[in-house]
Protein backbone atom coordinates (compact mmCIF):
# COMPACT_ATOMS: atom_id res chain seq x y z
CA UNK A 1 0.00 0.00 0.00
CA UNK A 2 1.10 3.52 -0.75
CA UNK A 3 1.08 5.71 2.30
CA UNK A 4 1.55 9.26 3.42
CA UNK A 5 5.25 9.56 4.30
CA UNK A 6 6.42 11.73 7.15
CA UNK A 7 9.49 13.40 5.71
CA UNK A 8 12.23 15.01 7.76
CA UNK A 9 13.56 18.38 6.77
CA UNK A 10 17.25 18.19 5.94
CA UNK A 11 17.67 21.82 5.03
CA UNK A 12 15.74 24.85 3.93
CA UNK A 13 17.14 27.76 1.98
CA UNK A 14 15.56 31.07 0.92
CA UNK A 15 16.28 32.02 -2.69
CA UNK A 16 14.78 35.48 -2.35
CA UNK A 17 11.66 36.68 -4.12
CA UNK A 18 9.53 34.43 -1.89
CA UNK A 19 11.13 31.29 -3.32
CA UNK A 20 12.38 28.55 -1.01
CA UNK A 21 14.28 25.33 -1.47
CA UNK A 22 13.59 22.39 0.79
CA UNK A 23 15.56 19.15 0.98
CA UNK A 24 13.57 16.33 2.52
CA UNK A 25 14.53 12.92 3.76
CA UNK A 26 11.78 10.78 2.21
CA UNK A 27 13.23 7.43 1.24
CA UNK A 28 10.00 5.69 0.28
CA UNK A 29 8.78 8.49 -1.94
CA UNK A 30 12.20 9.15 -3.44
CA UNK A 31 12.70 5.54 -4.44
CA UNK A 32 10.50 5.58 -7.53
CA UNK A 33 10.29 9.32 -8.17
CA UNK A 34 11.36 10.93 -11.41
CA UNK A 35 11.30 14.19 -13.32
CA UNK A 36 7.92 15.80 -13.91
CA UNK A 37 6.20 14.03 -11.08
CA UNK A 38 4.99 15.85 -8.01
CA UNK A 39 4.23 15.25 -4.35
CA UNK A 40 1.20 16.31 -2.34
CA UNK A 41 2.52 18.30 0.61
CA UNK A 42 0.33 18.63 3.70
CA UNK A 43 0.36 21.57 6.09
CA UNK A 44 0.41 21.16 9.86
CA UNK A 45 -2.48 23.62 10.07
CA UNK A 46 -5.74 21.87 10.73
CA UNK A 47 -7.74 24.64 9.08
CA UNK A 48 -5.92 23.97 5.77
CA UNK A 49 -6.75 20.43 4.88
CA UNK A 50 -5.91 20.04 1.22
CA UNK A 51 -2.46 19.06 0.02
CA UNK A 52 -0.28 21.46 -1.96
CA UNK A 53 1.02 19.85 -5.14
CA UNK A 54 4.74 20.59 -5.53
CA UNK A 55 6.92 19.28 -8.36
CA UNK A 56 10.15 17.45 -7.76
CA UNK A 57 13.11 19.72 -8.35
CA UNK A 58 15.68 17.04 -7.61
CA UNK A 59 15.57 13.41 -6.63
CA UNK A 60 18.52 11.90 -4.82
CA UNK A 61 17.75 8.21 -5.23
CA UNK A 62 20.93 7.16 -3.52
CA UNK A 63 20.21 8.94 -0.25
CA UNK A 64 16.43 8.81 -0.46
CA UNK A 65 16.05 12.55 -0.62
CA UNK A 66 13.82 14.97 -2.47
CA UNK A 67 14.27 18.62 -3.25
CA UNK A 68 11.24 20.88 -3.53
CA UNK A 69 11.52 24.47 -4.68
CA UNK A 70 8.39 26.50 -4.18
CA UNK A 71 6.99 29.98 -4.00
CA UNK A 72 5.28 31.39 -0.91
CA UNK A 73 2.04 32.78 -2.31
CA UNK A 74 0.89 34.83 0.66
CA UNK A 75 1.33 35.60 4.33
CA UNK A 76 -1.45 33.22 5.35
CA UNK A 77 -0.79 30.59 2.66
CA UNK A 78 0.11 27.00 3.37
CA UNK A 79 3.41 27.51 1.56
CA UNK A 80 4.25 30.24 4.07
CA UNK A 81 4.12 27.57 6.74
CA UNK A 82 6.38 25.30 4.71
CA UNK A 83 8.89 28.13 4.53
CA UNK A 84 9.14 28.22 8.33
CA UNK A 85 10.20 24.58 8.61
CA UNK A 86 13.67 24.04 9.95
CA UNK A 87 16.08 21.15 10.02
CA UNK A 88 14.78 18.13 11.87
CA UNK A 89 11.12 19.14 11.69
CA UNK A 90 8.77 16.91 9.75
CA UNK A 91 6.18 17.31 7.07
CA UNK A 92 3.76 14.84 5.51
CA UNK A 93 3.95 14.13 1.81
CA UNK A 94 2.25 11.74 -0.55
CA UNK A 95 3.87 10.64 -3.75
CA UNK A 96 5.43 10.43 -6.17
CA UNK A 97 2.25 11.32 -8.03
CA UNK A 98 1.34 11.65 -11.69
CA UNK A 99 3.22 10.87 -14.86
CA UNK A 100 6.41 12.76 -15.42
CA UNK A 101 8.37 13.29 -18.60
CA UNK A 102 8.67 9.93 -20.31
CA UNK A 103 9.71 10.58 -23.91
CA UNK A 104 13.37 11.46 -24.01
CA UNK A 105 14.58 13.05 -27.25
CA UNK A 106 18.17 13.41 -28.41
CA UNK A 107 18.47 17.19 -28.47
CA UNK A 108 15.94 18.53 -26.03
CA UNK A 109 15.13 22.15 -25.24
CA UNK A 110 13.94 22.56 -21.68
CA UNK A 111 11.88 25.65 -20.92
CA UNK A 112 11.15 26.77 -17.39
CA UNK A 113 9.22 29.89 -16.48
CA UNK A 114 9.05 31.31 -12.96
CA UNK A 115 8.21 28.63 -10.44
CA UNK A 116 8.13 26.23 -13.42
CA UNK A 117 11.92 26.35 -13.44
CA UNK A 118 12.66 23.90 -10.60
CA UNK A 119 11.17 20.74 -12.21
CA UNK A 120 13.39 21.34 -15.25
CA UNK A 121 16.44 20.65 -13.10
CA UNK A 122 15.61 17.02 -12.41
CA UNK A 123 14.64 16.63 -16.05
CA UNK A 124 17.98 18.04 -17.20
CA UNK A 125 19.72 15.67 -14.83
CA UNK A 126 17.77 12.72 -16.19
CA UNK A 127 18.74 13.65 -19.73
CA UNK A 128 22.35 13.84 -18.59
CA UNK A 129 21.88 10.47 -16.95
CA UNK A 130 20.75 9.09 -20.31
CA UNK A 131 24.15 10.04 -21.64
CA UNK A 132 23.37 13.32 -23.36
CA UNK A 133 26.22 15.82 -23.40
CA UNK A 134 25.90 19.29 -21.93
CA UNK A 135 25.84 20.75 -25.43
CA UNK A 136 22.85 18.64 -26.37
CA UNK A 137 20.72 19.69 -23.39
CA UNK A 138 19.55 23.27 -23.81
CA UNK A 139 17.77 24.92 -20.92
CA UNK A 140 16.06 28.26 -21.37
CA UNK A 141 14.99 29.80 -18.09
CA UNK A 142 12.62 32.70 -17.63
CA UNK A 143 13.00 34.43 -14.29
CA UNK A 144 10.93 37.26 -12.92
CA UNK A 145 14.06 39.05 -11.84
CA UNK A 146 16.96 37.36 -10.07
CA UNK A 147 18.13 33.88 -11.02
CA UNK A 148 18.19 30.78 -8.82
CA UNK A 149 19.39 27.19 -9.24
CA UNK A 150 21.88 28.35 -11.91
CA UNK A 151 24.88 26.40 -10.62
CA UNK A 152 22.89 23.21 -10.59
CA UNK A 153 21.64 23.69 -14.14
CA UNK A 154 25.04 24.62 -15.50
CA UNK A 155 26.53 21.39 -14.28
CA UNK A 156 24.45 19.34 -16.69
CA UNK A 157 23.15 21.62 -19.44
CA UNK A 158 23.72 24.62 -21.64
CA UNK A 159 21.77 27.40 -20.01
CA UNK A 160 20.18 30.46 -21.60
CA UNK A 161 18.73 33.16 -19.40
CA UNK A 162 15.82 35.52 -19.75
CA UNK A 163 13.90 37.61 -17.25
CA UNK A 164 10.90 39.89 -17.07
CA UNK A 165 12.97 42.63 -15.51
CA UNK A 166 15.98 42.25 -17.75
CA UNK A 167 18.21 41.82 -14.71
CA UNK A 168 18.98 38.21 -15.59
CA UNK A 169 19.89 37.37 -19.18
CA UNK A 170 17.90 39.04 -21.91
CA UNK A 171 14.72 40.93 -21.14
CA UNK A 172 11.88 38.78 -22.39
CA UNK A 173 10.32 35.36 -21.99
CA UNK A 174 11.60 31.88 -22.79
CA UNK A 175 10.29 31.99 -26.36
CA UNK A 176 12.20 35.23 -26.87
CA UNK A 177 15.11 33.30 -25.42
CA UNK A 178 14.85 30.48 -27.97
CA UNK A 179 14.79 33.00 -30.78
CA UNK A 180 17.42 35.44 -29.64
CA UNK A 181 19.89 32.79 -28.53
CA UNK A 182 18.89 30.71 -31.59
CA UNK A 183 18.50 27.56 -29.52
CA UNK A 184 18.06 24.40 -31.61
CA UNK A 185 16.56 21.05 -30.67
CA UNK A 186 14.21 18.20 -31.54
CA UNK A 187 11.62 18.54 -28.77
CA UNK A 188 10.41 21.07 -26.20
CA UNK A 189 9.91 20.26 -22.51
CA UNK A 190 8.20 23.01 -20.60
CA UNK A 191 6.82 24.01 -17.24
CA UNK A 192 5.45 27.44 -16.41
CA UNK A 193 2.37 29.64 -16.42
CA UNK A 194 -0.41 28.97 -18.91
CA UNK A 195 0.35 31.87 -21.30
CA UNK A 196 3.90 30.57 -21.58
CA UNK A 197 2.67 27.05 -22.27
CA UNK A 198 0.39 28.36 -25.01
CA UNK A 199 3.38 30.06 -26.59
CA UNK A 200 5.44 26.88 -26.24
CA UNK A 201 2.74 24.91 -28.00
CA UNK A 202 2.66 27.44 -30.83
CA UNK A 203 6.46 27.37 -31.05
CA UNK A 204 6.48 23.57 -31.28
CA UNK A 205 3.82 23.69 -33.97
CA UNK A 206 5.82 26.24 -35.90
CA UNK A 207 8.99 24.17 -35.58
CA UNK A 208 7.17 20.89 -36.28
CA UNK A 209 8.58 19.24 -33.16
CA UNK A 210 6.75 17.79 -30.14
CA UNK A 211 6.21 19.74 -26.93
CA UNK A 212 5.80 18.15 -23.52
CA UNK A 213 4.18 20.52 -21.09
CA UNK A 214 3.40 20.33 -17.39
CA UNK A 215 0.00 21.72 -16.35
CA UNK A 216 -1.35 23.09 -13.08
CA UNK A 217 -4.81 23.04 -11.58
CA UNK A 218 -6.35 23.20 -8.12
CA UNK A 219 -6.42 19.74 -6.62
CA UNK A 220 -8.21 17.98 -3.83
CA UNK A 221 -7.10 14.35 -3.93
CA UNK A 222 -4.03 14.39 -6.18
CA UNK A 223 -4.66 10.75 -7.06
CA UNK A 224 -7.28 10.88 -9.77
CA UNK A 225 -10.39 10.30 -7.69
CA UNK A 226 -12.13 13.65 -7.22
CA UNK A 227 -12.08 14.93 -10.82
CA UNK A 228 -11.20 18.35 -9.50
CA UNK A 229 -8.11 18.96 -11.59
CA UNK A 230 -9.12 18.30 -15.16
CA UNK A 231 -7.83 19.92 -18.32
CA UNK A 232 -9.71 19.99 -21.59
CA UNK A 233 -8.51 17.54 -24.23
CA UNK A 234 -8.70 17.67 -28.04
CA UNK A 235 -10.27 14.23 -28.27
CA UNK A 236 -12.62 12.33 -26.06
CA UNK A 237 -10.48 10.84 -23.34
CA UNK A 238 -10.60 7.12 -23.00
CA UNK A 239 -10.90 7.14 -19.24
CA UNK A 240 -13.34 9.99 -18.68
CA UNK A 241 -15.32 9.48 -21.92
CA UNK A 242 -15.48 13.26 -22.20
CA UNK A 243 -13.02 15.94 -23.34
CA UNK A 244 -11.24 15.97 -19.98
CA UNK A 245 -8.09 14.48 -18.58
CA UNK A 246 -7.03 14.54 -14.94
CA UNK A 247 -3.88 16.58 -14.44
CA UNK A 248 -2.90 14.75 -11.26
CA UNK A 249 -3.22 11.24 -12.63
CA UNK A 250 -3.04 11.42 -16.43
CA UNK A 251 -0.54 14.31 -16.25
CA UNK A 252 0.77 16.67 -15.06
CA UNK A 253 2.94 16.24 -18.18
CA UNK A 254 1.00 16.12 -21.44
CA UNK A 255 1.85 16.21 -25.08
CA UNK A 256 0.77 19.73 -26.04
CA UNK A 257 -1.21 18.25 -28.94
CA UNK A 258 -3.52 16.39 -26.61
CA UNK A 259 -4.78 19.31 -24.57
CA UNK A 260 -6.72 22.51 -25.19
CA UNK A 261 -5.07 25.37 -23.34
Amino acid at each position, binding site marked *: *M*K*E*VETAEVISQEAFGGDIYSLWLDAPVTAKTAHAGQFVSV*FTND*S*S*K*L*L*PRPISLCEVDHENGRLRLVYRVTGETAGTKQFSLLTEGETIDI*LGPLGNGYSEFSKKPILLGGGIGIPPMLELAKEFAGQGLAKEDISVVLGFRDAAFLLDEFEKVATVYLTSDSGNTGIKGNVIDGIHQYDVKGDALYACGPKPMLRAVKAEADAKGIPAWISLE*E*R*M*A*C*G*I*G*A*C*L*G*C*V*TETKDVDD*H*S*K*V*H*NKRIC*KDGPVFNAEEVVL
Partner: protein
Amino acid sequence: MINTEINIAGVIWKNPVTVSSGTFGSGMEFDEYVDINKLGAVTTKGVADKPWAGNPTPRIAEVYGGMLNAVGLQNPGIETFCSRDLPFLQKKDTRIIVNVCGHTLEEYLNVVDRLADEKVDLLEINVSCPNVKEGGIAFGVDPHALNEVTKEVKKHAKQPIIMKLSPNVTDIAEMARAAVDGGADALSLINTLTGMKIDIERRKFVLANKTGGLSGPAVKPIAVRMVYQVAHAVDVPIIGMGGIQTAEDAIEFIMAGATAVSVGTANFYRPNVTEEVVEGIRNYMERHHIESLDEIRKCL
Protein backbone atom coordinates in the same frame (compact mmCIF):
# COMPACT_ATOMS: atom_id res chain seq x y z
CA MET B 1 -18.17 -10.82 21.00
CA ILE B 2 -18.10 -7.61 19.04
CA ASN B 3 -20.28 -7.54 15.96
CA THR B 4 -19.93 -4.49 13.75
CA GLU B 5 -22.51 -5.65 11.21
CA ILE B 6 -25.34 -3.40 10.23
CA ASN B 7 -28.38 -3.77 8.02
CA ILE B 8 -29.50 -1.24 5.44
CA ALA B 9 -32.82 -2.23 3.92
CA GLY B 10 -32.03 -5.92 4.13
CA VAL B 11 -28.45 -5.57 2.91
CA ILE B 12 -25.97 -6.61 5.59
CA TRP B 13 -22.66 -4.72 5.70
CA LYS B 14 -19.77 -6.17 7.68
CA ASN B 15 -19.20 -2.79 9.27
CA PRO B 16 -20.99 0.57 9.12
CA VAL B 17 -18.37 2.45 7.11
CA THR B 18 -18.74 3.51 3.49
CA VAL B 19 -17.24 6.30 1.41
CA SER B 20 -19.16 9.29 0.16
CA SER B 21 -20.07 9.51 -3.48
CA GLY B 22 -17.59 11.56 -5.47
CA THR B 23 -14.79 11.28 -2.96
CA PHE B 24 -13.53 7.80 -3.80
CA GLY B 25 -13.89 7.65 -7.58
CA SER B 26 -15.15 4.23 -8.48
CA GLY B 27 -12.82 2.71 -5.90
CA MET B 28 -10.08 1.94 -8.40
CA GLU B 29 -8.09 5.09 -7.70
CA PHE B 30 -7.91 4.20 -4.00
CA ASP B 31 -6.95 0.59 -4.52
CA GLU B 32 -3.29 1.28 -3.84
CA TYR B 33 -4.00 3.37 -0.73
CA VAL B 34 -6.56 1.37 1.20
CA ASP B 35 -7.75 -2.21 1.45
CA ILE B 36 -11.21 -1.84 -0.05
CA ASN B 37 -12.19 -5.23 1.36
CA LYS B 38 -12.16 -3.65 4.80
CA LEU B 39 -15.02 -1.28 3.97
CA GLY B 40 -18.66 -2.00 4.75
CA ALA B 41 -19.59 -0.61 1.37
CA VAL B 42 -18.23 1.49 -1.48
CA THR B 43 -20.41 4.29 -2.80
CA THR B 44 -19.46 5.27 -6.33
CA LYS B 45 -19.16 8.66 -7.94
CA GLY B 46 -22.54 9.77 -9.34
CA VAL B 47 -23.27 8.16 -12.69
CA ALA B 48 -25.71 9.35 -15.36
CA ASP B 49 -27.16 7.71 -18.44
CA LYS B 50 -24.68 9.48 -20.73
CA PRO B 51 -21.15 10.82 -20.09
CA TRP B 52 -21.16 14.29 -18.45
CA ALA B 53 -18.31 16.75 -18.92
CA GLY B 54 -18.89 18.54 -15.63
CA ASN B 55 -18.06 22.16 -14.91
CA PRO B 56 -15.13 24.29 -16.09
CA THR B 57 -12.11 24.60 -13.80
CA PRO B 58 -11.20 25.70 -11.16
CA ARG B 59 -13.50 23.17 -9.55
CA ILE B 60 -11.86 23.08 -6.12
CA ALA B 61 -11.32 25.69 -3.41
CA GLU B 62 -9.90 25.22 0.02
CA VAL B 63 -11.81 26.90 2.85
CA TYR B 64 -11.37 26.97 6.62
CA GLY B 65 -11.76 23.41 7.88
CA GLY B 66 -13.10 22.14 4.59
CA MET B 67 -13.37 22.64 0.87
CA LEU B 68 -15.72 23.72 -1.88
CA ASN B 69 -16.20 21.64 -4.99
CA ALA B 70 -17.99 22.31 -8.21
CA VAL B 71 -17.02 19.22 -10.15
CA GLY B 72 -20.50 19.23 -11.64
CA LEU B 73 -20.93 15.47 -11.69
CA GLN B 74 -18.46 14.69 -14.45
CA ASN B 75 -18.89 10.98 -15.16
CA PRO B 76 -18.25 8.51 -17.98
CA GLY B 77 -21.87 7.40 -18.25
CA ILE B 78 -23.58 4.21 -17.19
CA GLU B 79 -22.27 1.98 -20.00
CA THR B 80 -18.60 2.56 -19.24
CA PHE B 81 -19.45 2.35 -15.56
CA CYS B 82 -21.03 -1.08 -16.00
CA SER B 83 -18.33 -2.47 -18.24
CA ARG B 84 -15.28 -1.05 -16.46
CA ASP B 85 -15.97 0.15 -12.93
CA LEU B 86 -18.53 -2.32 -11.67
CA PRO B 87 -16.46 -5.44 -12.46
CA PHE B 88 -13.61 -3.97 -10.43
CA LEU B 89 -15.85 -3.43 -7.41
CA GLN B 90 -17.55 -6.79 -7.77
CA LYS B 91 -14.23 -8.52 -7.17
CA LYS B 92 -13.98 -6.84 -3.77
CA ASP B 93 -15.51 -8.18 -0.59
CA THR B 94 -17.68 -5.15 0.09
CA ARG B 95 -21.17 -3.89 -0.67
CA ILE B 96 -21.69 -1.77 -3.77
CA ILE B 97 -23.79 1.38 -3.70
CA VAL B 98 -24.21 3.13 -7.03
CA ASN B 99 -24.90 6.85 -6.80
CA VAL B 100 -27.30 7.89 -9.54
CA CYS B 101 -27.66 11.37 -11.04
CA GLY B 102 -29.57 12.95 -13.86
CA HIS B 103 -30.88 16.23 -15.22
CA THR B 104 -34.41 14.93 -15.59
CA LEU B 105 -36.52 12.20 -14.05
CA GLU B 106 -36.15 10.22 -17.25
CA GLU B 107 -32.38 10.28 -17.04
CA TYR B 108 -32.49 8.96 -13.47
CA LEU B 109 -34.80 6.16 -14.55
CA ASN B 110 -32.54 5.24 -17.46
CA VAL B 111 -29.70 4.61 -15.03
CA VAL B 112 -31.88 2.77 -12.55
CA ASP B 113 -33.25 0.55 -15.32
CA ARG B 114 -29.82 -0.15 -16.72
CA LEU B 115 -28.64 -1.31 -13.28
CA ALA B 116 -31.61 -3.61 -12.73
CA ASP B 117 -29.77 -6.77 -13.67
CA GLU B 118 -26.34 -5.79 -12.40
CA LYS B 119 -24.85 -7.12 -9.23
CA VAL B 120 -25.29 -3.94 -7.22
CA ASP B 121 -26.50 -3.89 -3.63
CA LEU B 122 -28.06 -0.48 -3.22
CA LEU B 123 -28.85 2.57 -5.28
CA GLU B 124 -28.25 6.02 -3.87
CA ILE B 125 -30.29 8.66 -5.68
CA ASN B 126 -28.57 12.03 -5.66
CA VAL B 127 -31.39 14.54 -5.81
CA SER B 128 -29.34 17.12 -4.06
CA CYS B 129 -26.25 18.02 -5.99
CA PRO B 130 -26.04 21.78 -5.74
CA ASN B 131 -23.84 22.07 -8.81
CA VAL B 132 -26.34 20.96 -11.39
CA LYS B 133 -28.61 23.68 -12.55
CA GLU B 134 -31.45 21.65 -14.04
CA GLY B 135 -33.61 18.93 -12.51
CA GLY B 136 -31.43 17.74 -9.65
CA ILE B 137 -31.52 20.80 -7.50
CA ALA B 138 -35.27 21.31 -7.66
CA PHE B 139 -35.88 17.70 -6.62
CA GLY B 140 -33.61 18.16 -3.68
CA VAL B 141 -35.22 21.13 -1.98
CA ASP B 142 -38.93 20.70 -2.75
CA PRO B 143 -40.73 18.01 -0.76
CA HIS B 144 -43.38 17.39 -3.42
CA ALA B 145 -40.86 16.92 -6.21
CA LEU B 146 -38.77 14.71 -3.93
CA ASN B 147 -41.79 12.56 -3.12
CA GLU B 148 -42.60 12.19 -6.81
CA VAL B 149 -39.11 11.29 -7.93
CA THR B 150 -38.82 8.78 -5.10
CA LYS B 151 -42.07 7.07 -6.14
CA GLU B 152 -40.98 6.82 -9.76
CA VAL B 153 -37.51 5.56 -8.96
CA LYS B 154 -38.95 3.02 -6.56
CA LYS B 155 -41.23 1.67 -9.30
CA HIS B 156 -38.22 0.98 -11.50
CA ALA B 157 -35.53 -0.01 -9.04
CA LYS B 158 -34.66 -3.65 -8.49
CA GLN B 159 -32.37 -2.76 -5.59
CA PRO B 160 -33.36 -0.95 -2.38
CA ILE B 161 -33.08 2.82 -2.83
CA ILE B 162 -31.35 5.34 -0.64
CA MET B 163 -32.50 8.92 -1.20
CA LYS B 164 -29.66 11.37 -0.58
CA LEU B 165 -30.87 14.57 1.04
CA SER B 166 -29.67 18.12 0.59
CA PRO B 167 -28.89 20.17 3.71
CA ASN B 168 -29.80 23.39 1.91
CA VAL B 169 -33.36 23.31 3.19
CA THR B 170 -35.42 24.90 5.93
CA ASP B 171 -36.84 21.64 7.24
CA ILE B 172 -34.82 18.48 6.74
CA ALA B 173 -37.39 16.35 8.59
CA GLU B 174 -40.07 17.34 6.09
CA MET B 175 -37.79 16.30 3.24
CA ALA B 176 -37.08 13.00 4.95
CA ARG B 177 -40.78 12.30 5.38
CA ALA B 178 -41.46 13.15 1.74
CA ALA B 179 -38.83 10.65 0.62
CA VAL B 180 -39.98 7.93 2.98
CA ASP B 181 -43.61 8.46 1.99
CA GLY B 182 -42.45 8.03 -1.60
CA GLY B 183 -40.97 4.65 -0.74
CA ALA B 184 -37.35 5.36 0.12
CA ASP B 185 -35.79 2.30 1.76
CA ALA B 186 -33.08 4.37 3.40
CA LEU B 187 -31.81 7.94 3.50
CA SER B 188 -28.33 9.37 3.29
CA LEU B 189 -27.34 12.85 4.41
CA ILE B 190 -25.90 15.37 4.21
CA ASN B 191 -24.85 16.35 0.72
CA THR B 192 -22.81 19.55 0.51
CA LEU B 193 -23.91 23.01 1.64
CA THR B 194 -23.78 25.70 -0.99
CA GLY B 195 -20.85 28.04 -0.43
CA MET B 196 -18.74 30.64 -2.18
CA LYS B 197 -15.17 31.87 -2.06
CA ILE B 198 -13.88 35.09 -3.57
CA ASP B 199 -10.25 35.78 -4.44
CA ILE B 200 -9.97 39.38 -3.26
CA GLU B 201 -6.64 40.01 -4.95
CA ARG B 202 -7.94 39.02 -8.38
CA ARG B 203 -11.53 40.14 -7.67
CA LYS B 204 -12.85 36.85 -8.98
CA PHE B 205 -14.75 33.84 -7.76
CA VAL B 206 -12.28 31.11 -6.94
CA LEU B 207 -14.55 28.55 -8.59
CA ALA B 208 -15.46 28.91 -12.26
CA ASN B 209 -18.99 27.91 -11.24
CA LYS B 210 -19.12 30.79 -8.69
CA THR B 211 -20.63 28.57 -5.99
CA GLY B 212 -19.59 25.13 -4.83
CA GLY B 213 -20.53 22.51 -2.30
CA LEU B 214 -19.02 22.89 1.17
CA SER B 215 -17.77 19.68 2.77
CA GLY B 216 -15.30 18.56 5.41
CA PRO B 217 -15.05 18.89 9.21
CA ALA B 218 -16.53 22.41 9.10
CA VAL B 219 -19.99 21.02 8.31
CA LYS B 220 -20.10 18.26 10.90
CA PRO B 221 -22.25 20.00 13.54
CA ILE B 222 -24.90 20.75 10.92
CA ALA B 223 -24.80 17.19 9.61
CA VAL B 224 -25.10 15.63 13.09
CA ARG B 225 -28.05 17.88 13.88
CA MET B 226 -29.81 16.91 10.63
CA VAL B 227 -29.19 13.20 11.12
CA TYR B 228 -30.66 13.52 14.60
CA GLN B 229 -33.73 15.33 13.30
CA VAL B 230 -34.29 12.82 10.52
CA ALA B 231 -33.78 9.84 12.82
CA HIS B 232 -36.55 11.23 15.01
CA ALA B 233 -38.86 11.93 12.07
CA VAL B 234 -38.77 8.72 10.04
CA ASP B 235 -38.19 5.06 10.56
CA VAL B 236 -35.78 3.98 7.81
CA PRO B 237 -32.04 3.45 8.20
CA ILE B 238 -29.83 6.49 7.76
CA ILE B 239 -26.35 6.74 6.30
CA GLY B 240 -24.83 9.72 8.07
CA MET B 241 -22.08 11.85 6.60
CA GLY B 242 -20.58 15.31 6.62
CA GLY B 243 -17.11 15.99 7.96
CA ILE B 244 -16.31 12.55 9.33
CA GLN B 245 -12.55 12.08 9.72
CA THR B 246 -12.24 9.90 12.83
CA ALA B 247 -13.99 6.97 14.47
CA GLU B 248 -15.16 9.40 17.15
CA ASP B 249 -16.92 11.45 14.49
CA ALA B 250 -18.53 8.28 13.17
CA ILE B 251 -19.79 7.28 16.62
CA GLU B 252 -21.27 10.74 17.02
CA PHE B 253 -23.39 10.17 13.89
CA ILE B 254 -24.43 6.74 15.09
CA MET B 255 -25.52 8.13 18.45
CA ALA B 256 -27.46 10.80 16.57
CA GLY B 257 -29.33 8.01 14.82
CA ALA B 258 -27.32 6.85 11.81
CA THR B 259 -27.11 3.14 11.00
CA ALA B 260 -24.10 3.59 8.74
CA VAL B 261 -21.59 6.36 8.21
CA SER B 262 -19.79 7.67 5.19
CA VAL B 263 -16.37 9.28 4.93
CA GLY B 264 -16.01 11.89 2.20
CA THR B 265 -13.58 14.77 2.00
CA ALA B 266 -11.22 13.16 4.50
CA ASN B 267 -10.27 10.58 1.85
CA PHE B 268 -8.55 13.41 -0.01
CA TYR B 269 -6.14 14.27 2.77
CA ARG B 270 -5.85 10.89 4.51
CA PRO B 271 -6.19 8.27 1.80
CA ASN B 272 -6.45 5.39 4.28
CA VAL B 273 -8.78 7.19 6.70
CA THR B 274 -11.58 4.68 6.17
CA GLU B 275 -9.50 1.79 7.49
CA GLU B 276 -8.69 3.91 10.55
CA VAL B 277 -12.35 4.67 11.10
CA VAL B 278 -13.34 1.00 10.84
CA GLU B 279 -10.65 0.04 13.32
CA GLY B 280 -11.43 2.95 15.63
CA ILE B 281 -15.09 2.01 15.84
CA ARG B 282 -14.09 -1.50 16.86
CA ASN B 283 -11.74 -0.10 19.51
CA TYR B 284 -14.46 2.15 20.87
CA MET B 285 -16.81 -0.83 21.09
CA GLU B 286 -14.18 -2.85 22.93
CA ARG B 287 -13.38 -0.06 25.31
CA HIS B 288 -17.05 0.49 26.12
CA HIS B 289 -18.04 -3.18 26.08
CA ILE B 290 -20.49 -2.72 23.26
CA GLU B 291 -21.38 -5.87 21.34
CA SER B 292 -23.58 -4.35 18.69
CA LEU B 293 -23.95 -0.83 17.39
CA ASP B 294 -27.67 -1.15 18.13
CA GLU B 295 -26.73 -0.46 21.74
CA ILE B 296 -25.59 3.05 21.00
CA ARG B 297 -27.61 4.01 17.95
CA LYS B 298 -29.95 6.87 18.78
CA CYS B 299 -29.00 6.42 22.43
CA LEU B 300 -29.80 9.97 23.46
